[in-house]
């Protein structure tokens, strides 16, 4: 299996060729949005942090910003800063330029004398970049170059028996062809972490998986919070999920069954091919944000109740095994896996069928969220703003 992608000087190829308008902090977000709206081929993100943070939060937001810039789906970057934020535009630009040779320029709103002047410069720079990006021809790459994120959100009773096992099957097939897949949301491994840990390729990775869960529980407990309390929820029980073990197993099934070759911190690129896992929040938008910042090309997203989310940098392919949800939210759902829940097809069959969906998306087919231009992100936090 192969796909048409965009060659990058560093790392994996991209499946999109976006010019990213990247704010350094919340204060640059609106100007970035306006620049992107003026230039076809440019995308922006809205950043809610980047200032007045403790060091750990700053480290996280910097990993996300540099990770977005380095994502292979990005051709070039226009950074828009304010001037007094924790890491100003020129410093962020230098960091990114140390990581990638792709085009990067930056402007500061205070330096330029206000938003209109900044927007003018940003639009001119972005226009030049999209013109160049349009000249880049696609090349054929082996599927082993693909890096796919796996996510779930708005789950229901069909998720664990339909969409998650089907996506797990897809992940296994991709991994067998040499590709890389990442499953995140470590908080949702709890209750099933011993099963996930059994998939570890080495004893070290086994212990890392258990340790990630233990640390997450300790982190919440330090703030007086208990992640097991009330799990499974009354709604889960009414929907047929009897124990936290059952809920977690249904959730982690989306990551497939192949050996886990690496445990990643948030927003860190994998160093190996195969099935990897990432320590992120269970909040779907935040988890997708961290996987995109780690360089994934696309995200496959399972849902039961339905979701509309999308990401500016990577296509988010939303799949559901709940037939009613697919019908009611067809404007947001990309793949209907309900034949599994009707007993017409097995999850193995539908997992295999989704290889074609992945191939199509790699080759340029827009997901529904992508066509709408959706750009959701959420940056995980260690503690309060200061």
């Amino acid at each position, binding site marked *: 299996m192969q796909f048409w992608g965009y060659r990058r000087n560093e790392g994996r190829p991209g499946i999109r060729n976006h010019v990213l308008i990247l704010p350094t902090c919340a204060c640059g977000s609106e100007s970035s949005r306006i620049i992107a709206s003026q230039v076809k081929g440019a995308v922006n993100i809205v950043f809610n942090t980047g200032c007045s943070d403790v060091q750990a939060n700053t480290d996280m937001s910097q990993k996300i910003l540099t990770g977005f810039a380095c994502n292979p789906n990005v051709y070039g970057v226009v950074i828009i800063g304010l001037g007094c934020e924790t890491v100003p535009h020129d410093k962020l630009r230098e960091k990114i330029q140390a990581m990638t040779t792709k085009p990067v320029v930056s402007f500061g709103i205070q330096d330029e004398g206000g938003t209109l002047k900044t927007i003018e410069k940003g639009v001119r720079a972005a226009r030049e970049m999209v013109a160049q990006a349009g000249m880049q021809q696609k090349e054929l790459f082996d599927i082993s170059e693909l890096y796919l994120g796996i996510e779930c959100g708005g789950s229901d*009773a*069909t998720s664990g*028996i339909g969409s998650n*096992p089907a996506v797990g099957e897809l992940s296994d097939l991709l991994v067998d062809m040499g590709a890389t897949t990442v499953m995140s949301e470590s908080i949702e491994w709890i*209750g*099933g972490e*011993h*099963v996930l*840990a059994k998939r570890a390729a080495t004893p070290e990775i*086994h*212990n890392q998986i*258990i340790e990630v869960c*233990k640390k997450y529980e300790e982190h919440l407990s330090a703030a007086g919070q208990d992640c097991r309390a009330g799990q*499974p929820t009354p709604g889960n*029980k009414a*929907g*047929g999920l*009897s*124990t*936290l*073990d*059952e809920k977690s*197993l*249904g959730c982690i*099934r989306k990551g497939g069954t192949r050996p886990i070759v690496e445990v990643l911190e948030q927003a860190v690129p994998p160093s190996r091919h195969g099935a990897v896992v990432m320590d992120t929040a269970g909040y779907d938008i935040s988890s997708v944000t961290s996987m995109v910042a780690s360089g994934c090309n696309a995200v496959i997203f399972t849902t039961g109740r339905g979701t509309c989310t999308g990401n500016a940098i990577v296509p988010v392919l939303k799949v559901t095994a709940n037939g009613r949800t697919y019908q009611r939210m067809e404007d947001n759902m990309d793949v209907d896996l309900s034949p*599994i*829940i*009707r*007993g*017409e097809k*097995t*999850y193995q069959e539908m997992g295999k069928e989704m290889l074609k969906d992945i191939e199509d998306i790699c080759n340029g087919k827009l997901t529904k969220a992508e066509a709408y231009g959706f750009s959701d992100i959420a940056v995980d936090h260690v503690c309060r703003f200061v």
Partner: protein
Amino acid sequence: MEIKALLMGLSDNVVTCITDVKAGEKVAYRKGDEVLCVEAAEDIPYCHKIALTDLAEGADIIKYDESIGRISCPIERGGLVDHTNLFSVPRDYDAEW
């Protein structure tokens, strides 16, 4: 025969119903290439689990080829397995790794 339940792992001792099932109804499910059948001993709601064998009190319930807990009372073949008779077994992580 219409498939009415899904088997998630070959070693599972429960299947998950994909429709509301009435007591006495025959519930067909796939196991590999075979289609097998279990008769519901009671009403089983949509997305709930049905026992494939007679199970003694304290038996592990296996779904996804893994234990999802143990049962607090005996359950006969065809019986409902849910949160009222299934409990999570606390784990001693420090002893395990």
